[in-house]
């Protein structure tokens, strides 16, 4: 049995909800996968498609975009933009030969430390089963 593939995952997190939720998970000594590499932005609305593409290009096997639940965005409607942007971007990924499953948009509030842990684990498991992105793009 070879060494199991460990994916690299870039997780964009908004400052107010998900980042705080991740922080709370840490404070509560909950374990989240070390595959997830956090990038803090002020709002999920700050994440442009270019950044997601940049992450893939720089070697990420998966990208998580996380923000406040709809209605809870610190800036009221920043996450409304992400809701429109990310599905479009997933379509785009398919056309360039990247499995759209490698990009996920999801909501984690500051109070949802357990959810943060669960979401990061299940996404990591999914990407692990998809295998490395380099392999997929090469095929």
């Amino acid at each position, binding site marked *: 049995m070879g060494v199991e593939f460990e994916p690299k995952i870039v997780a964009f997190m908004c400052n107010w909800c998900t980042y705080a939720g991740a922080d709370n998970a840490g404070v509560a000594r909950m374990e989240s996968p070390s595959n997830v590499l956090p990038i803090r932005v002020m709002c999920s609305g700050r994440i442009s498609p270019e950044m997601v593409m*940049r992450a893939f290009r720089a070697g*990420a096997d998966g990208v998580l975009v996380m923000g406040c639940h709809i209605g809870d965005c610190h800036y009221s409607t920043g996450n409304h933009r992400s809701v429109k942007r990310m599905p479009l971007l997933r379509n785009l990924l398919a056309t360039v030969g990247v499995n759209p499953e490698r990009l996920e948009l999801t909501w984690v509030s500051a109070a949802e430390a357990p959810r943060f842990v669960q979401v990061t684990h299940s996404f990591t498991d999914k990407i692990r089963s998809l295998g490395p992105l380099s392999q997929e793009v090469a095929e």
Partner: protein
Amino acid sequence: MNKLIIDGAEYQAQDDQTILDVCRQNGIEIPTLCYHPAMEPYGACRLCTVEVIRHGWSNLHTACTHPAWDGLEVKTQSPAVYDVRRTLMGLFLSRCPHVPVIQNLARQYGVTEPPFATDDPDQKCILCGLCVRVCNDLVKANVINFSDRGIDRQVGPPFLEKTRDCIGCGACTIVCPTGAIDIVLEEAGVYAEKPLGPTAAIYVPSLQAVPRVPVIDTDSCIRFRQQDRSNGKIADACGVCQTLCEANAIDFDQQDEILDLTVGSVIVATGFEMWDPKKLSQYSYGRSPHIITGMEFERLSNAGGPTGGQILLSDGSKPKRVAIIHCVGSRDHNAHAYCSRICCMYSLKHAHLVRDKTGAEVYEFYMDMRAFGKGYEEFYERVQEEGVTMVRGRGAVVDVLPNGKLRVKGEDADLGKLLAVDVDMVVLSTAIEAPHDADKISALFGLGRTADGWFAEAHPKLRPVETNTDGVFLAGCAQGPKDVPDTVAHAGAASAAVLGLLDRGEVVIAPTVAEVNRDDCVGCGDCLLVCPYTAITRVEGKAQINAALCKGCGTCVATCPSGAIMALHFTDDQIVAQIDGVLAWA
């Protein structure tokens, strides 16, 4: 201004005052039976008789009806006055030999035995007419009046029959000086008693109310109850409070007012609500009047409460055994998972009060005793020393037995045994929870809420009164369960944070704002559409950002098709460097 001499001293009086008014105002005692300050004097009982000397002529008059004319001389204690009152009290005592008020007054005038034969020893009515006047003149229900004449004279409803016109206000029972009228609640149409509620239609909500002013309960107020619901017009009835209020503070037309205030900061201190124990049927709440919540116990043991602070069962007797159940709705995955924090200590307080006021046996069912504060553990010990039986284990079920007694079952974990105790009263120390409309408050102020429903502070350790919305602070239970000392400390910190802002007079904003590079901006205006703060305007065909309005979310940055906007401290270059960095290192 009239001047008159009463018992040798000179007093001043207004034109519309009676001799009785002047005497009462100056602390001169005159006995009365048929007088009530809210109604016109009637002169029926004659007990207020005084000697009035005018132009040298002396006469006996009733003080309640005689105007306080200029130049009068009044004697309230002369032998003639004493004689008249003594005779009157003899007559009253012969009519009503067993009424304490009459007995006491008669004794004051040296009458201890009825001088005449008594017709009906149970008679209580002295025919003063107060009830008749209150019903007709004040309440305007026109239900009671006099009937028959001479020695047959009596008061009552028409033909002395029950009438549906009685609105059950009870005003007649209150004004009756001898307690001759009882209200019997037996039919619909008469308002049911509120066992734990206020006892009058106008009351100060609680002894410590701030501001400490009375309110009118429009459901019980005679005037409001006869309101014309079609046009909101209030009946012209009663108004006793208005008549009697010297400060002239009663305003029946007062309406709720909505004020628009411009403020710089807001402290949200919306507190808690009680969790409803009906949600878990095993506690049988609502199935017996003797299963009450901690809050209802507070009302019962309050000196301003319905029993004057005595702890009584619904039949007026003292309970002999009381069970107090902790954690009802708290630490329970079927209700609230969290510990409500305050109930252990208030349960101990309740146990102490029951022991102190009734001497009843107290069984306290608890899982863990959270005596967390300064002096609290000591109080716990003291309550144990007072003889309270502590049962370690959740009170699991409360059954209402056919004889009305209550059976509490639970496990005594210390003994490892199941336990059942029969008690007279059960106090449920119910959980506290976020107010039912907390979602509206959170939407209004953009507040986050923790999973348990309370408003989220900006940081659980370092910023406990701030929220993520600038200028909005939290105080007290709005942020999570707290007892009074913790609430006061938290509120003090919130006020200090607000004062800090006021003192500075200017606000410091985060430097993470967006900036437009005018050379790259093509003026498409996409950013204007996405900005939640309308911080972007078009100036000379190009986007311009007002840094004071911008909150730095960066949505415009990600939207701009020309890459002309930069989020300071979160620039594309910085984020890309981070992406590259984490991936290279991982």
